[in-house]
């Protein structure tokens, strides 16, 4: 079914089509439409789910943990301050190996009060063990929720589907809403082998000393690494069934590119017409949109970037005292590589500052002009 829907509703539709059994959520701008539509879907009987209207995001995640531990497919969504409030229990969900899927709308952190987009909220949670998908279109948001469950339930790890505040969350676009029967075939009912079961009583998460905690962490890392292949596999399978294939990254006009722009989410989307325009002028520029940020596809990035002339990474987030996260990770992935290209790290669009095509172009041109980056962090468009 073709529909024009907003990014937030794409999350709701994703949860509906995935047949989420429990939803626990708390409203926060700019996420509210996600929970509003889900409430209505439940009230109308379109979605047969238990909806727990909790009193905080912390409880949204805690309730999700309980429901997921009981074996139910569980969905929640939040943003910024809400995500930060969840921080402790985000770790818990990972350690307890709960395949929860959560939408996070990238909103800049306060203070000052703000509601506009920036990735620092979800980037701050990159070490919680949540797998993270950064989306760049309304369609991709919906599709990613369904794929997220497929991956989460194989590795028993939670997945965050991330989208830009307003630029995606409140943008309406054409979206194909797949048939439920096809989604059911792609994503069958889930039987959690480790659920709380009165017939097989077990305690989960009991005190664990240094003798085995280390191995439990090793297992999380191994399964996180395994999820790389699963994202590729499930993305391919998705393509076969629905005609839209997804991978760890999306490349555009990359083959012979000597200058490569690496970015994510909506900035990477806006970069496409810029690449088109510059290609027409004869510049060998290409694009990598990083879609899966956790786990970071280091091998793939090495393969794609090794031997290029120049790489610029555009981050809509900042790790104060260092640089942007996508830049850090890309640089780290390329460090032990022989033909590691020089890398420019731009910070753009913090707090929802618009990043139109001319700004993207400025960053590419500056990179092309310079032989080497002047530092680890390049601010673009600061009013000085």
């Amino acid at each position: 079914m073709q529909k024009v829907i907003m990014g937030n509703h794409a999350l709701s539709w994703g949860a509906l089509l995935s047949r989420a059994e429990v939803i626990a959520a708390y409203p926060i701008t700019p996420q509210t439409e996600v929970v509003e539509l889900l409430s209505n879907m439940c009230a109308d009987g379109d979605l047969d789910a238990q909806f727990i209207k909790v009193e905080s995001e912390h409880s949204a995640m805690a309730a999700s943990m309980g429901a997921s531990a009981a074996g139910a497919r569980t969905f929640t969504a939040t943003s910024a301050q809400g995500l930060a409030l969840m921080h402790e229990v985000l770790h818990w969900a990972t350690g307890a190996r709960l395949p929860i899927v959560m939408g996070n709308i990238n909103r800049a952190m306060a203070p000052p009060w703000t509601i506009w987009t920036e990735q620092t909220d979800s980037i701050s949670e990159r070490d919680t063990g949540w797998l993270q998908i950064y989306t760049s279109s309304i369609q991709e948001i919906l599709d990613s929720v369904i794929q997220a469950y497929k991956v989460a339930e194989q590795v028993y790890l939670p997945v965050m589907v991330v989208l830009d505040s307003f630029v995606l969350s409140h943008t309406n676009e054409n979206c194909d809403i797949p048939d439920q029967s096809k989604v059911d075939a792609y994503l069958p009912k889930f039987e959690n082998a480790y659920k709380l079961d009165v017939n097989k009583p077990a305690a989960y998460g009991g005190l664990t000393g240094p003798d085995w905690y280390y191995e439990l962490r090793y297992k999380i890392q191994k399964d996180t690494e395994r999820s790389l292949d699963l994202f590729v596999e499930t993305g391919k399978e998705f393509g076969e069934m629905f005609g839209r294939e997804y991978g760890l990254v999306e490349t555009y006009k990359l083959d012979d590119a000597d200058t490569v722009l690496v970015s994510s989410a909506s900035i990477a989307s806006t970069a496409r017409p810029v690449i088109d325009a510059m290609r027409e002028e004869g510049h060998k520029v290409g694009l990598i949109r990083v879609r899966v940020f956790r786990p970071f596809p280091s091998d793939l990035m090495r393969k794609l970037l090794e031997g290029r002339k120049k790489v610029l990474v555009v981050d809509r987030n900042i790790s104060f005292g260092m640089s942007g996260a996508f830049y850090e990770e890309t640089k780290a992935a390329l460090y032990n590589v022989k033909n590691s290209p020089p890398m420019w790290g731009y910070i753009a669009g913090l707090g929802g500052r618009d990043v139109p095509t001319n700004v993207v172009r400025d960053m590419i041109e500056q990179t092309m002009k310079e032989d080497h980056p002047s530092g680890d962090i390049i601010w673009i468009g600061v009013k000085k």
Partner: protein
Amino acid sequence: MSDEIKWKKESDMPLMAMSMGRMTVNKTGSWRNLRPVIEKEKCIKCGICWKFCPDVSIRLDEEDYPVVDLEFCKGCGICAVECPKDAITMIKEE
């Protein structure tokens, strides 16, 4: 399910910290300084000592006399205090 679990490598373990056995592997009898001794003659088989044992270490035999499971009894002495007939005495462990 009360056997001690001995893993050699991470692949022996479950995915997460999930219990695979019961705490009866933990012989708490070693915590004890004082040991309850029951004088059968005084016992009226009321079951109060059984009832108030926090360590589930007193069972009642076929004749309803209490038997202390010294493998687990921590020697707290509640049974001795609660016994209405003073039939239980706490004596020093050797």
